[in-house]
């Protein structure tokens, strides 16, 4: 039993020692692993800052570093991230080449989850490029890689909805979009589903419902801070309001869409892909 008087004297020292223990930095990893980690973090920062050129270079470095360390999952992740940057820059050829490498049978066996993600990314790029048939194949492959619940199942349903919209099958698109709205909790996919549903409803003449979905999508996209999609939502609202005979409001929304679009175009770091749209 420690004497109370002694404890009273040494408790500041004990507190100091505890604080020092809390404050000590975590142990360092080997230099190459540390470098790979830092490169990946720097790539993330560049991506978040909208510096796609730097992000591309850093993700490429990260991929090569991880490959040189035989870290297959990390190198696949870096490759998928790099493909996203290529896609944003409008270089779909390079993006698909990276994803095809992950999906190829001759490539090292990457984890199924990452192969599924790669297939999903490939489908998104192909849908954007208007290659519906090839996108369907990629989507099937993505579904095949999912043994149980896919992390990107909401995204896959949204992609199916986009394909249905492309084919003019608005009823099917609406069903798929609503299934996402009922099941997903991801804000991005929920907003995408609301927008797809609104497009389908506009085409089906259900303007009131379309307006509700466009406004819901707008709210979510504003929360997410996605300018390009805010423009799409505002334009959709303007279009539907015009159809509903609410001309002054329609014009106001159209002006807002134009203002957002103009400001977004003037911002640095805007992706080539959004510029092409």
């Amino acid at each position, binding site marked *: 039993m420690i004497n109370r008087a002694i404890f009273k004297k040494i408790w500041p020292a004990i507190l100091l020692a505890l*604080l020092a223990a*809390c*404050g*000590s*930095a*975590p142990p360092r990893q080997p230099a190459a692993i540390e470098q790979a*980690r*830092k490169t*990946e*973090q720097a790539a*993330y920062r560049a*991506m*978040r800052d909208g510096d796609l050129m730097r992000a591309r270079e850093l993700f490429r470095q990260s991929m090569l570093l991880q490959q040189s360390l035989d870290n297959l999952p990390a190198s696949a*992740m870096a490759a*998928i*991230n790099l493909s*996203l940057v290529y*896609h*944003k820059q409008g270089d779909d050829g390079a993006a698909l080449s990276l994803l095809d490498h992950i999906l190829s049978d001759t490539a090292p066996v990457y984890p199924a989850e990452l192969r599924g*993600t790669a297939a999903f*990314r490939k489908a*998104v790029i192909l849908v954007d490029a208007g290659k519906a048939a090839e996108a369907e194949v990629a989507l099937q492959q993505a579904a095949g890689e999912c043994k149980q619940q896919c992390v990107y199942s*909401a*995204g*896959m349903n*949204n*992609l199916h909805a*986009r394909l249905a919209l492309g084919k003019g099958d608005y009823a099917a698109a609406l069903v798929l979009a609503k299934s996402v709205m009922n099941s997903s909790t*991801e804000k*991005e*996919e929920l907003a*995408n589903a609301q927008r797809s549903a609104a497009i389908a409803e506009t085409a089906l003449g259900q303007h009131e419902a379309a307006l509700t979905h466009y406004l819901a999508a707008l709210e979510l996209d504003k929360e997410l801070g996605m300018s390009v*999609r805010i423009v799409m939502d505002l334009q959709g609202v303007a279009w539907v309001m015009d159809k509903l005979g609410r001309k002054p409001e329609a014009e106001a929304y159209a002006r807002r869409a134009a203002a957002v679009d103009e400001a977004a175009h003037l911002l640095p770091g805007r992706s080539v892909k959004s510029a092409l749209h």
Partner: protein
Amino acid sequence: MSQMKLLADKDERFKGLFVKVGIFVLLAILGVSFNLLFSGIKKGLFTPKSPINFVAGTGQDIKVGMPVKLNGFKIGSVSKMGMDEKAQARVEMLIENRYLSLLKEDAMVSLKQEGVIGDSILEARRGSEGKKQLQPGASIEFERGGGLDRIAQDLRDRLYPALDEINKLLKDANDPKGDVRQTLGNLRQFSAEMRGTRARIDHLLDQINEGVANDVRPTLHAVKQSAESAEAIMGKVNQELPGLIKKTDASIDNLRQTSETIKSAVDNSAPELSGFLGETRGLVSDTRNIMDSASTSWPLKSMMQAPEQGLVKMDSHD
């Protein structure tokens, strides 16, 4: 009052109080004085110094109190600054007498930076060995040196005249009234006249064959005229060519000097620039390491957002 007197009288501790306080205050004053004296000696306040002057085009980057160094040792400092009648900066330095003997009549000072991003200092150069010792109150030369700005300025100063020469040469070559065009025109004219002379000689030969002696004279006269003309032109060409060649030589020389200037400037600045970049990179790397370590340590760890890793978040419309 009587109570206090009673206490003072009886308490042993108050005996000799005035003397004790006096000694204490004296010791304190002595201590402070020694401290001030020691600091003054250390700072060279009592070291004998002599004024040395220099004139700079501008007083930019020169300040009162700025150290003057010789081979890395501080030998004095800038004591006074003012503007002379030509609006130039007149600077007085106080150089410690023990170091003044090291400086010669042709000693110089130059404005430099300590390290790549360090403070500005005045760097003294001793001067030639054979020269007399620098006298107090003398004036010495000043030059601005070192620093990336200076390198850029120097490069610009050396490049501009050479580029001007190249411009002048090209302008001269393109000018219809310039030497190059004129000479070429004269040569062209000479060639045309020679062609005419040949035609006339041919004609003369024909005439001779036909035996028409009367026609020979005027034709020969024409030949003579052409020859004279050719001679005059050749004379002009001979006159102008050396000048032209001289100009071309000067221009080529200038081009060579330009290339040497660029090469020398690059050679001089490259090590400094690479050093500068290396230091900057090191600084950034160190800062990043500190920030990384700090951000992963308590208490910042709990305040910082965890760095993103893995797959970038993407959706079906990205």
